[in-house]
């Protein structure tokens, strides 16, 4: 939009930026990416595919984006845009009402179909992926919708639940879900607890991010440490404070 006059808020850069504040000391070796999609792709690379024998598509949590980009509202808007044009899928992961998982649609389709090889439910799942996913960006489906709008029969719905594409939410309504994601949720919660414990047990309940990433993790933490760090910073379970020696993570008591 071409403005004739500048906005008043442009005169005052709301975040008082001291010169070179981003190049603080030892930390911050990567510059801020402006694009949400490239951040998503970077976070996807942190996801451990080998751990699940390549059966799961790469999952990123929405609040991990908040740890990289400052403006949360902008991140939300961009994610919604990507969902509208069908490139991204959002799932309610179940352990937290605010934790949403993001998966690229193409990834999801390939993995689900690969998992359905040789199973009886394959045709129904294919039908679901082709009919429902492109047209509807909802996180959950009610029985009414499934029967009337998408014209699935009861037995087909049972097959979809059996294959893992739908999970029961209430009597008569289902969440969209990732098949075989139970292991992911289990390892994720375990790992998150362990990493938070590491921060909490440090002296004064705080640790430099660079130090934390160097530490050896227990067998509880199956994901790369960086994945968990983005998660706890984005979910505001720890406070991220810029210091002259890098970013400091301080445990937030709530």
């Amino acid at each position, binding site marked *: 939009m071409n403005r004739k006059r500048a906005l*008043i808020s442009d005169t005052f850069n709301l*975040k008082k930026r001291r010169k070179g504040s981003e190049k603080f000391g030892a930390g911050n070796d990567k510059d801020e990416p402006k694009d949400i999609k490239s951040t998503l792709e970077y976070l996807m690379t942190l996801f451990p595919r080998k751990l699940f024998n390549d059966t799961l598509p790469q999952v990123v949590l929405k609040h991990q984006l908040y740890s990289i980009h400052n403006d949360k509202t902008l991140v939300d808007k961009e994610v919604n845009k990507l969902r509208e044009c069908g490139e991204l899928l959002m799932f309610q992961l179940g352990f937290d009402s605010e934790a949403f998982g993001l998966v690229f649609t193409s990834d999801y389709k390939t993995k689900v179909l690969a998992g359905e090889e040789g199973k009886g439910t394959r045709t129904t799942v294919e039908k679901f992926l082709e009919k429902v996913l492109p047209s509807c960006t909802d996180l959950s489906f009610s029985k009414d919708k499934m029967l009337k709008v998408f014209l699935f029969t009861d037995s087909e719905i049972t097959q979809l639940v059996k294959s893992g594409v739908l999970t029961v939410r209430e009597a008569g309504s289902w969440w969209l879900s990732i098949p075989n994601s139970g292991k992911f949720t289990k390892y994720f919660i375990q790992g998150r607890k362990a990493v938070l414990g590491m921060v909490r047990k440090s002296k004064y309940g705080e640790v430099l991010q660079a130090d934390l990433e160097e530490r050896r993790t227990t067998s509880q933490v199956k994901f790369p440490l960086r994945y968990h760090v983005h998660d706890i910073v984005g979910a505001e379970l720890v406070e991220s404070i810029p210091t002259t020696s890098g970013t400091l993570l301080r445990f937030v008591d709530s």
Partner: protein
Amino acid sequence: MLGFLTARQSGLDDPLRMRRAESTRRVLSLTLDPDRDVDRIHGNGINTIDIEAVEGRYMLSGGADGVIVIYDLENYSGKLQYTCKAVCTVGRSSRHVHKFSVETVQWYPFDTGMFVSSSFDKTMKVWDTETLKPAEVFQFEGNVYSHHLSPIARKHSLVAVGTNNPKIQLCDLKSGSRIHVLQGHRAEVLSVRWSPRYEHILATASADSKVNVWDVRRASGSLFTLDQHNGEKSKASAEAVNTAHNGRVNGLCFTSDGLYLLTTGTDDRMRLWNSASGENTLVNYGKVCNESRKKLQFAVSRGCSPDFVFVPCGSSVAVYALHTGELVTMLRGHYNNVDCCEFHQDHQELYSGGKDSNILAWVPVLRTADVEDELGCEASVGPHGHTGHPS
């Protein structure tokens, strides 16, 4: 700033634009000024403060010990160092003082001759400021969490009262009657607020996670309930429920033009709603720590571009930009939890009160005087005034 001045002078810009720019600059430089102080009268935490709308000179505060104090905020002493003195108090020795903690105080919106206070002793008292005696006492069956008088009402003089009871009572100041009741909530009503734009629109927040918007002229229920998912039932954890927050809703504040409504809840979230349609604008403020079991009093600035929200967050006050949701700064200074804050619209100052029984004044500090200028100032009183900056 000089750019704005020349543009205004030559007529390129509207005069309002420069006023907005200067207000925004002042709000961005709010700090705890060592020269400004508020008299410490309360022995216990301060639950609520209110600045009168007419002149912005007098401030009321209600404390956890039932004491109500009136302060004079104007500085007529000519010196930089100024303590806002308490003009009068309704102390523990008064016969009419509230028995338990005062939860809400509000000046009568049209003059300072009257103010209304409500407390956990299940009463709401309408006081005469001159004699400091209650002109009217309304009795209720449960603790009164919040009350509000409409700041623009000409056709009615109703006070909306939120108590332990899920029904909202409307008390009429002219006749003393309280027959008008609004039904619709299922749990205690923690906060009530009239719209500053339409005198018949009332918003109420309750512990059952719902926020209802009412038109008091309408005989049947509320106009609408705020829904955080904007009708997208798919995101909610259950199909049927229409909630504004995932926990108790304990703070309500309209922006000064009445177009938007802010709500805070114990799910640590703050949401901005379009007050005409009830739509969630989905501005993401992040985690706004909220552990209050009673109502939370927070404030929105006026006349700045963009506007700011001041929310008490633990023992500091968080300042967020209204429409983008970014955290501008945290104002730290209190020793204990902050319970209430109020923005002085004309001077762009923020007053906050908390459990440490202090009211702190956050004043825009734009330029600090140099040591040499101060010495020069003492010698010549003349045209330099009191800022001591001869340039």
